[in-house]
């Protein structure tokens, strides 16, 4: 026992000083107040204007008081519940907690069995949700593709329906426009047990995006409005590509992203103060040679950490990015790029880190990458956990007992601690050469592939209730009807 002591500390990471954070915060407020954004949504402009914003055509400028008020009402912590009622699968978003998951709507998908890159299907949505459900270090679920074996206009609604049947972990949903948002919410409420049940224990998060630089489209704000009205936990997350849709200097990229995200914050808090809101998002640079957003670059890790610290500084959780790569294959490049951004997301405590499994600069979704990163997340968590200093871990009596020249291998202290103190690899291989050769001389990517197949062939997610399944089928029928009528 100790008095006046800090006895346990995890790894401490700090990128920006308080003064730097304050400056970036002020720069974001400045952009909102003096430059403003184009908001392509009449309802939002009316709402903002009646609440002291300046509106001039599409251009909306927010005095800093509006932002500060919204920051005050927006919660720093909230919980999103697993549909299985299993506390271990709930997301307790708040200081110090950090979670990981894949990303949505890639243009292509890496076939889980063959590795071929192709169009994404309904069956893939089921597979991705199943794999997420099984992987111990994946906490939330996104699709890694855009369903292309049904009309694209229905991809959003169908994706949610397919995934929620295959996982008990919370889904982060998206939709093209309000109609899809509504349909997804109906399904989520049905699974929760009704509207009241959903409000008490929300079971998913909805994600939408502004358009950089400093634009919000009509559909995006329609969705923000819908989510705020129904108190659906909301992420409003920009994708600022430095040098292209944002400035070329890191501090400015962070400030612009914050400004864009906070438009969504202000709208949601005006409509329903206290709506759980997560700031975002993807902050990176444009590769000036290949003209792609550089998902594997060091700048991504740096910018994400900076944005995370800014979010926490102003009292918001952050939807961050990591586990992704510009590589076209799940290879050495994919491993190093993914691992570094996973590490920095964890060190900075980015609340929800998405895009784990994104390859090819976000254009292809890969379960092989996700499986490999699952191992990496577990690995870095052991580092971040830190070194526990207690009489038991200091173990001076043990060293004394074993004595000079002794062995600790069969010691009671070793036995009682090694399973907890040491990290145990599942995909990482440490066997001696002879054993490794006898086992097939495998590479990391091959072992990830094998583990993926194993999961797909054996994992059984918890089924939905018959009532929920029926409701979901009804919602899909409604979506089909909506699509038909839109075609004529």
């Amino acid at each position: 026992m100790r008095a006046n002591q800090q006895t346990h500390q995890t790894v401490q990471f700090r990128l920006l000083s308080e003064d730097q954070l304050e400056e970036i915060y002020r720069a974001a407020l400045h952009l909102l107040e003096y430059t403003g954004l184009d908001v392509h949504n009449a309802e939002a402009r009316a709402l903002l204007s009646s609440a002291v914003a300046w509106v001039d055509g599409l251009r909306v400028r927010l005095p800093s008081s509006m932002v500060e008020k919204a920051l005050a009402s927006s919660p720093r912590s909230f919980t999103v519940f697993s549909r299985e009622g299993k506390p271990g699968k709930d997301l307790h978003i708040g200081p110090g907690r950090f979670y990981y998951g894949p990303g949505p709507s890639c243009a292509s998908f890496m076939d889980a069995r063959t590795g071929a890159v192709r169009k994404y299907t309904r069956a893939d949505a089921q597979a991705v949700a199943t794999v997420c459900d099984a992987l111990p270090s994946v906490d939330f679920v996104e699709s890694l593709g855009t369903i292309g074996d049904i009309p694209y206009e229905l991809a959003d609604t169908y994706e949610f329906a397919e995934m929620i049947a295959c996982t008990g972990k919370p889904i982060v949903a998206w939709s093209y426009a309000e109609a899809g948002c509504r349909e997804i919410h109906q399904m989520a409420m049905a699974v929760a047990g009704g509207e009241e049940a959903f409000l008490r224990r929300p079971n998913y998060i909805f994600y939408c995006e502004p358009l950089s630089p400093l634009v919000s489209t009509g559909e995006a704000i329609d969705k923000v409005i819908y989510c705020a009205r129904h108190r659906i936990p909301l992420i409003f997350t920009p994708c600022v590509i430095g040098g292209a849709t944002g400035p070329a200097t890191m501090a400015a990229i962070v400030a612009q992203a914050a400004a864009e995200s906070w438009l969504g914050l202000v709208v949601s808090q005006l409509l329903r103060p206290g709506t759980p809101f997560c700031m975002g998002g993807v902050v990176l640079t444009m590769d000036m040679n290949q003209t792609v957003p550089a998902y594997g670059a060091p700048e991504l890790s740096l910018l994400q950490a900076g944005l995370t610290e800014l979010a926490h500084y102003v009292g918001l959780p952050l939807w961050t990015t990591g586990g992704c790569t510009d590589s076209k294959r799940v290879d050495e490049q994919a491993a190093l790029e993914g691992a570094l951004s996973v590490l920095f997301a964890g060190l900075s405590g980015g609340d929800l880190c998405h895009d784990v499994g994104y390859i090819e600069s976000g254009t292809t979704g890969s379960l092989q990458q996700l499986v490999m990163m699952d191992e990496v997340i577990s690995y870095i968590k052991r580092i971040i956990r830190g070194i526990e200093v207690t009489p038991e871990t200091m173990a001076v009596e043990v060293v004394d007992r074993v004595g000079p020249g002794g062995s600790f291998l069969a010691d009671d202290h070793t036995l009682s601690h090694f399973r907890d103190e040491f990290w145990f690899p599942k995909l990482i291989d440490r066997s001696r050469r002879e054993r490794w050769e006898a086992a097939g001389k495998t590479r990391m990517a091959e072992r990830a592939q094998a583990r993926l197949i194993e999961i797909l062939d054996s994992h059984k997610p918890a089924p939905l209730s018959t009532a929920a399944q029926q409701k979901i089928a009804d919602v899909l029928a409604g979506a089909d009807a909506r699509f038909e009528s839109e075609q004529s």
Partner: protein
Amino acid sequence: MATLDDLKQAIINGNREKAKELTKAALDEGMAAKSIVVDGIAAAMEVVGEKFRANEFFVPELLIAQRAMKEALGMMSGESVDYIGTVVIGTVRGDLHDIGKNLVAAMLEGAGFKVVDLGVDVSPEKFVETAKAQSANLIAMSALLTTTMGSMKDTVATLGSEGLKGKVKVIIGGAPVTQSYADEIKADGYAPDAASAVDLAKKLIAG
């Protein structure tokens, strides 16, 4: 030819003011427009293209060189300038994403095309009307969203019903767009990035 070499260098360096001055000086000296374009402007863009391919110049250097080139060409608008073709470009209806389209437009201009940029959220009718009005060789369309891609098909159909299919070629691009989608909607081509879009455009003009 000192002035033309200086003009060439000014464009390579992205120096707009100097490019303008030197073009005016060359015109005032009585130099032929064709000569200025070929030995000054086009020659500069050749070098810029090589440096870009060699990873010495990146997209920003390319764009400022093109901006300087535009200033130089602008000084010659009284003279007859031979564009290699005319392209009508835009981001399709319902889609506001334009960074890729802007890059393609800039690079097409740099390659000597007359580029009519319709901006974002462009309807099929607007693409076709403008192509007619401008006697364009090409329509170039961009989309970032899977749901907006569909209006590319409508543009091809509208061209057909105006009897312009084959006379005006259609090229498409954007993150969800693929060669197989281009084949499906009977577009004349697809390019995965701005540089190959320019190569494709040049090929279609020639063929």
